[in-house]
């Protein structure tokens, strides 16, 4: 397939000896560049954590550790309470994912299929939040979370402070709504004639047909929480409840370098693993999102 599509340089040019030589030169150059720019920093981090504290501070540095220590990793695990912070992150990310799936899916289904009165106004209000950059509103959002209107409860130092704001994700909601809009009408109508209720239709007809979009939304939801820094920094002043991103920065001041680097590696593993497992879907999702706007 790829050989058939014509790109900037014609296959005929590439087939000539000079073209082939140029191609392989560029190819090798790009491989080296990618290895140096993107893989080497990661290698440096993973091996840096295995050097001794003296070796990591030594100039010129060693490319390969003289002695491989695992103590950096074990110390990070114990001294920085990584299990606790990783667990906090998992709870926050999983909850945000579940809340988004339930509430965004239900709302998107209602907007797409149930024709609520003022549905267009509501959709407009939701889409308008796409125009309002999220970070610029963190302070009033923080004040709201600190003292919810009417019920005067604080969501600070509570995972709900991550979960509920995560639902207000216009991008994911719109993605779901657009997908539901395109589902074949007759299938849904057939279910209705068979006497299925709306919830039943959503659960046993719409959702099973929406697996691709649910996958994309799930990945976006998990990654967003795991990578976020400013909002959890504001919400969790309580050290025991902080997710790993906040804890890393707070603890980075007074901890041995090798231990910190080891903790950074450990903090990266879940997302990198998620990426390597779902790379096809993630890359396809990003590429598709661009051309469809």
């Amino acid at each position: 397939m790829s050989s058939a599509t014509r790109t900037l340089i014609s296959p005929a040019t590439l087939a000539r000896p000079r073209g082939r030589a140029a191609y392989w030169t560029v190819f090798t150059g790009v491989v080296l560049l990618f290895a140096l720019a993107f893989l080497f920093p990661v290698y440096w981090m993973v091996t840096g954590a295995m050097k001794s504290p003296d070796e990591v501070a030594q100039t010129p540095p060693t490319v390969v550790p003289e002695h491989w220590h695992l103590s950096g990793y074990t110390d990070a695990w114990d001294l920085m309470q990584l299990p606790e912070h990783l667990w906090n992150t998992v709870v926050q990310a999983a909850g945000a994912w579940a809340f988004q799936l339930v509430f965004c899916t239900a709302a998107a289904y209602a907007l797409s299929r149930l024709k609520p009165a003022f549905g267009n106004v509501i959709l407009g209000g939701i889409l308008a939040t796409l125009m309002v950059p999220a970070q610029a509103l963190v302070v009033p959002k923080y004040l709201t979370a600190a003292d919810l209107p009417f019920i005067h409860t604080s969501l600070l130092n509570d995972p709900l402070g991550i979960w509920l704001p995560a639902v207000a994700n216009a991008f994911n909601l719109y993605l779901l709504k657009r997908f539901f809009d395109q589902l074949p009408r007759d299938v849904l109508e057939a279910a209705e004639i068979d006497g299925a209720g709306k919830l039943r239709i959503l659960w046993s007809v719409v959702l099973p047909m929406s697996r691709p979009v649910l996958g994309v939304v799930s990945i976006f939801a998990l990654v967003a929480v795991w990578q976020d820094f400013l909002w959890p920094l504001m919400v969790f002043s309580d050290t025991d409840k902080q997710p790993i991103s906040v804890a890393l920065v707070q603890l980075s001041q007074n901890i041995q370098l090798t231990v910190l680097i080891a903790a950074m590696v450990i903090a990266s593993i879940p997302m990198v693993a998620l990426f390597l497992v779902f790379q096809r879907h993630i890359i396809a999702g990003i590429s598709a999102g661009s051309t469809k706007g």
Partner: protein
Amino acid sequence: MTKTAARRPAATAAVAVRQAPAPPPAGDRRRRRITDQVRAYGFLLGGLICFALFSWYPAIRAVVISFQKYTPGSSAEWVGTANFTRVLHDPEFSAAWRNTLTFTLLALLIGFAIPFVLALVLNELRHAKAFFRVVVYLPVMIPPVVSALLWKWFYDPGAGLANETLRFLHLPTSNWTNGTGTALISLVIVATWANMGGTVLIYLAALQSIPGELYEAAELDGANLLQRIRHVTIPQTRFVILMLMLLQIIATMQVFTEPFVITGGGPENATVTVLYLIYKYAFLYNDFGGACALSVMLLVLLGIFSAGYLRLTRSGEDG
């Protein structure tokens, strides 16, 4: 059976009274419409509450508090435009805006040309395609805090990798994040490294949608490589280029993690950004009025870019 049970309750009594003289079919239809609406709003409720609390209400509140003296716990006091004048006279204010705009501009210069050229080259390569895509996107999946800490270590004037590499190449070393002149660009490099993957992938997708015949026709007309890029590639991807440019401006104007983690705003305020200043006003000075005044200014500016982005994507969908 659950269906009939669910249709009966709520909201029907009032209708029944008002609709008493009407023939039964019409009343049935009306009753049904109301239960449909109740059900629709039942599905919407959770999402609506969250949007109201964490998107709509904060947007209004930012504007309201920007005209108030506000401390959590005590009652607010109207102060007119005092917050705005105070913020405007803060020497950090001009530094923060200057830094943010310089950051955005540098990020455009560095973070814009490089991914495009890289995508252009990658699109010509016929081997190891999946490998390149995974590797270029790898830094995006590393938590931003980790990449910031990683580069902080690279920039370390002592045993940091950046200066060690320069020494190895017999080049003069740099102060990186410790020099007032180099700190900002050092952060731009971090942000570009960390975020480039997404841009490259989107460009690649755009490049693949260019019909091959256009290149063939251009080549037959005697266009050389650069002319083909100029007259085929760039016009064909113009829409994506513009869209990504606006998205990048919006994202980089809200930069926070890199300066917060790597430089703490220093040296001498050389890397304080607007969002960082908002954070400082709220959490260091406890001045929420000032923080909201700053937020409103950022909001207005970014709103203009966002509106441009939305108009662009909509016109792209039509055409």
